[in-house]
């Protein structure tokens, strides 16, 4: 069962912004940065926590939108994470980022290439191809969202992403929480998730693994090749049959690819 023995830690950073981090495991530090569906502890993070100390921060502003007024773009967001890593004494972490989290991880590594030991970008945002645009995930009908994010939208672990509480009194809170999280991501990437990261990719020198579902309908597979073209030290693990939530659609394959890339003790 996922989520056992996860430690929830909070602190206020010198900037006045707050940090909210889930921590589990022992070993070299690994930071997981979440995408637009929000931070949640799942079996994938349990797997990573077998060999690492996994830190799963919540992006700033995801619950308190006022914080976003102090974050005007990726340079501010990168400094936020640098502050957070210092506060938690996380040194040279492995950064694993999914979707928007991948874009944050790549921007961090481009700013502090010496501060990252390795990088795993899973279906990462950050680049733009006119002939294969990234889907406008908040600009499509809500009933289309699950099948845009997963090749197996009826699977229990995918349905759980979108499920609402049985108690009607609590539905509103969940809706507000999800909308706020989406807003905190849109804050950095609206309306097109391209902030010219492509010009900075040459600085991302740590070893990098690109994990992509062959059937990603949010950030198509072509983006893996585009990242690989710009990154000096990257290899790609393509997961056949998986969608954007690769780690939900094909957990074992993703875990195996990441473990192979990050041998115990790295």
């Amino acid at each position: 069962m996922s989520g056992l023995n996860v430690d929830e830690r909070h602190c206020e950073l010198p900037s006045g912004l707050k940090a909210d981090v889930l921590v589990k495991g022992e070993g070299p530090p690994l930071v997981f940065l979440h995408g637009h569906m929000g931070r949640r502890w799942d079996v994938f993070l349990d797997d990573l926590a077998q060999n690492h100390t996994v830190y799963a921060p919540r992006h700033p502003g995801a619950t308190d939108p006022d914080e976003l007024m102090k974050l005007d773009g990726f340079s501010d967001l990168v400094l936020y994470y640098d502050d957070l890593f210092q506060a938690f004494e996380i040194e040279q972490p492995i950064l694993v980022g999914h979707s928007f989290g991948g874009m944050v991880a790549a921007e961090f590594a481009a700013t502090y290439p010496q501060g990252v030991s390795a990088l795993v970008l899973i279906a990462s945002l950050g680049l733009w191809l006119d002939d294969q645009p990234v889907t406008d995930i908040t600009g499509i009908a809500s009933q289309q969202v699950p099948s845009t994010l997963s090749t197996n939208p009826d699977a229990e672990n995918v349905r759980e992403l979108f499920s609402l509480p049985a108690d009607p009194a609590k539905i509103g809170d969940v809706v507000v929480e999800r909308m706020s999280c989406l807003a905190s991501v849109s804050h950095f990437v609206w309306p097109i998730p391209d902030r010219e990261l492509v010009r900075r990719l040459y600085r991302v020198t740590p070893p990098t693994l690109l994990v992509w579902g062959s059937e990603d309908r949010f950030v198509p597979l072509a983006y893996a090749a585009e990242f690989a073209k710009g990154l000096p030290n990257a290899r790609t693990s393509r997961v056949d049959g998986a969608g954007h939530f690769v780690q939900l659609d094909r957990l074992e394959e993703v875990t195996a690819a990441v473990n192979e890339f990050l041998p115990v003790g790295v």
Partner: protein
Amino acid sequence: MKMIWFHLQGYRELPPDFEDRYESVWVSPPTDELCRPEKVHQYLNWNLDELDYAAKLGYDGVGTNEHHQNGYGFPCSPNQTAYYLAKSTTDQAIVILGNTLPLYNPPLRAAEELAFVDCLSNGRCVAGMPVGSPMDVAHCYGITPTQTRPRYYEAHDLIKQAWTREGPFHFNGKYTKLRNVNLWPKPIQDPHPPIWLAGGGSLETWDFAAEQDYTYSFLSFGGRTAAKPMMDGFWETVAKHGKDANPYRGGFAQIVMVGETDAEAEKLYLEHARYFYKKSLHVAPHYAAVPGYMTKKSLEANVKKGAGVNAFSTPADFDGMKWSDLVDREKRVIGGSPATVIDHIKELAEDLRVGHLILIMQLGSMDHELTKYNTRLFAEKVMPHVRDIWDDQWEDHWWPSGARKPELPGVAPGA
């Protein structure tokens, strides 16, 4: 009560199967399939003729709004229409409701254009300053949803300073940085044209209106029953700020359709009301609910209320929609004989406590002649009985100083 003839300036001939074929009337209806420039030539000329006609018939104000990529109305810059009206009319308030401030970069452009309208019209400009809709702001113009309100407040400050401070001065905002703000010209009205706010139920807008002593108009097409909780919320906010309950603090947009008899009104207008609710308000929910556009506080409040009230709520059953449902049961439309319309407007004024009645009298597919017919019947047979509501008790502090109360001509020109 002030009667403002307000034009949405929409497309009048969307195809019969529009709502089945296309996801939304706003943002994404493909222009090459649906929007014929030669038709728009005809509509734009009709629109201005209809506004002029209303002015000649003695309406207190004429106005329009700002929308983009929208089949029910696309006056992309309301200042263009206002500039024409400033020249073609002599007495009316020119109600620009309004410039969507977060879209102007720098927002100084809105300050300049409104000052132009005010100078040309000799002080008849109403400066509406809405925050905007998620469709226009986030989807059509690409403004980051979470930046919308901060941009709005900053633009408002800049415009107000540009109108009132001695220039040149510098303005060091977050989104706009200017070394020399020095408006040529400033508006004629002193200190500036009345600022009107408009909205669809954000709590922050009510607070802002009450704090700044601005008038607030609730813009919806849902009629007074649906608007009641919203306007009640606004009036509670006004009271909380210790301001008086002057009904001219409030405005309301209302669809009005007048016939010689109730039966004639139904015969003339029902198909157009159906067109409007079915096609014109066919807005995709994912364009209307943009994460971060509404603040968390307002979102929580709306979720608590069941989010039942929004500007684009439409009847559940378009095809079975009856005139009696629209007029009597749901009260979306005020329609019928002059006597019926007079009664319903009096009820609305009292129920919502509004002094500015924003009349929507050209709806969707209504053609030029029917629009004029509606406009004339209202002016001749309804307006004399409702225009004095409130005036024995309250003064309108939000009406432009250069506007004059028009004489009612008695007999309509060309009638």
